[in-house]
């Protein structure tokens, strides 16, 4: 009888200990706010000054992130804490300033409490996901759409909008850039000083400047008067845009 009581007490202690560990989690939000230069990026309504006195409007800007992880402060390079496996950061429904200032957030609420020194993610759809297709998923899922069957892969980034190339006030020049290929996938890492506290939420803010995606400088920009679309067909165009996307993603502490 005495032994049974001891066994019960030990089991209770183990259970309490497990519960304690489960509760030592916090939430980490990654918020991605997009701008065009410094102006919040709003679909449809807002027009944005580009180079050479050109003006642009947008209807869609989106890109994928894969394997979002947090790197613990005391970790070796191989130990990371998973945050989000795959996410589509889409500004399609950002239809006003308030939504633009709010940005797009991906959240994970089971991040172990502790200090973290970096956040890392893949820009695009990792090859293991890019080998799948929407038939592998039940909506809503980031990969239930944006699959380009003839290319056997996902479109990593889409920019769709209109330009006013002749200054008549009509944005009737169409722009569509649909970029995606395994060769474009790349990993990015950003140093952070993040402490996740039990039961609390923390936010890491990122900024993405769409103008920087389309241009490096006033003398080095995508000339939308001559290039109005790319479906990952012209390496000069799609590499330029995707390399720029990497540079356009910045952490905002």
């Amino acid at each position: 009888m005495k032994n049974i009581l001891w066994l019960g007490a030990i089991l209770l202690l183990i259970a309490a200990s497990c519960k304690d560990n489960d509760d030592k989690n916090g939430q980490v939000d990654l918020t991605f706010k997009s701008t065009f230069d410094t102006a919040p990026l709003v679909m449809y309504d807002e027009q944005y000054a580009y180079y050479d006195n050109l003006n642009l409007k947008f209807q869609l800007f989106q890109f994928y992130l894969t394997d979002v992880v947090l790197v613990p402060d005391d970790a070796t390079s191989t130990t990371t804490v998973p945050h989000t496996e795959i996410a589509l950061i889409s500004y399609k429904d950002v239809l006003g300033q308030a939504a633009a200032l709010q940005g797009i957030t991906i959240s994970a609420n089971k991040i172990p409490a502790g200090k973290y020194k970096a956040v890392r993610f893949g820009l695009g759809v990792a090859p293991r996901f890019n080998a799948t297709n929407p038939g592998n998923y039940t909506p809503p899922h980031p990969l239930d759409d944006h699959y380009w069957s003839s290319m056997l892969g996902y479109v990593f980034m889409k920019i769709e909008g209109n330009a006013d190339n002749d200054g008549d006030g009509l944005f009737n020049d169409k722009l569509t850039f649909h970029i995606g290929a395994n060769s474009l996938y790349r990993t990015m890492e950003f140093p952070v000083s993040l402490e996740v506290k039990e039961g609390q939420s923390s936010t890491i803010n990122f900024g993405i400047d769409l103008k920087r995606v389309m241009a490096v400088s006033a003398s080095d920009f995508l000339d939308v008067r001559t290039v109005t679309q790319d479906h990952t067909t012209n390496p000069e165009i799609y590499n330029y845009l995707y390399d720029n996307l990497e540079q356009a993603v910045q952490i905002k502490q």
Partner: protein
Amino acid sequence: MMWQRMRERWREGERERLFWVLIIVLWSCNDNRLAYISSEPTPYKLEEPANFVKMQIPADNPLTKEGIALGERLFFDPILSADSSLSCASCHIPSLAFTDGKARSVGVGGKTVRRSAPSLINVGYHYKGLFWDGRVQSLEMQALMPVVDHSEMDNSWEVAEERLRRHSDYPILFRRAFGIRRTSDIDRYLAAKALAQFERTLVNHNSKFDRVQRGDAKFTADEKRGWQIFFDDSQELPTSECGHCHIDPLFTTLGFFNNGIEQVNTLGDFRDKGLGAVTGHISDNGKFRTPTLRNIMLTAPYMHDGRFATLDEVFDHYISGGHFADNVNPNVRKLRLREQDKKDLIAFLQTLTDSTFVNYSVPGSSGADLSLQ
């Protein structure tokens, strides 16, 4: 003792009273109580094409043979319309890929519906909103609306429910499908669930295109060229830009777009605001759900209002780049297609015809064993 008394009364000429008591008891059982009928709905395993996105089936409305059979019966039965003249199938005719061949459908009393009847092929996969304007999110919600739409069935659900409750067959069918205990348990929501179950079985994936994808057939040279133009798969051929919105395997992204068919001065000027009337966002005005191109050869006339009678007219529209408006999808742009390109595109589009439902005989022949036994 009781039997003895009954026999005495029988002898005493109370047969008539007893007779009426029995009639009332039997009537009561028949009208209100269905529990004596067995109800063990048989789970139905839908065969989903491997390359289709997985169908969302609500946990509270799983597919059953009995539910699908009831939905099929309701779909083809005019009982739901005000004057019992129109069924769902009046505007969604199987041989026309569940459209009706009209620019705008005709409802009870000859009233014209404001839009064209959309195809129901693969409608179970429509997870971004139903109707041309996306105003409901589930087939269960969608099925409630045409019954009470004044330009469609022009009925009330109260009347339709009462007809179903008084019908000789439906109480039993609802019992078998949903386990109801009384006829009064029959309601619009169960009817809608049954219709939704039936509609989820309208899966189409046996066109020549599908067979080519599976390696069971080959495109002709014209069809392949049309496929390449459609999906912008060749640097040497022009693109028709179709594949952006009509992506395979559903041949629709299910998204909502303004494809430039309406000439307006401002976004507020659309006569039919489409998605904009649902969301309240002016940038959504004039946007409509991208329809599937599966069975496109069977679904003329085209667009949400059937304004284009032929595919040639459709091509001419897209080649022109459409009318300008601030929210016209940028993928709608001037095209450089020649007559041969159009012919090749049509050759490819013909490979999307699937005759699975063309020879549909109703009801009870939806391909699966849906017998009610």
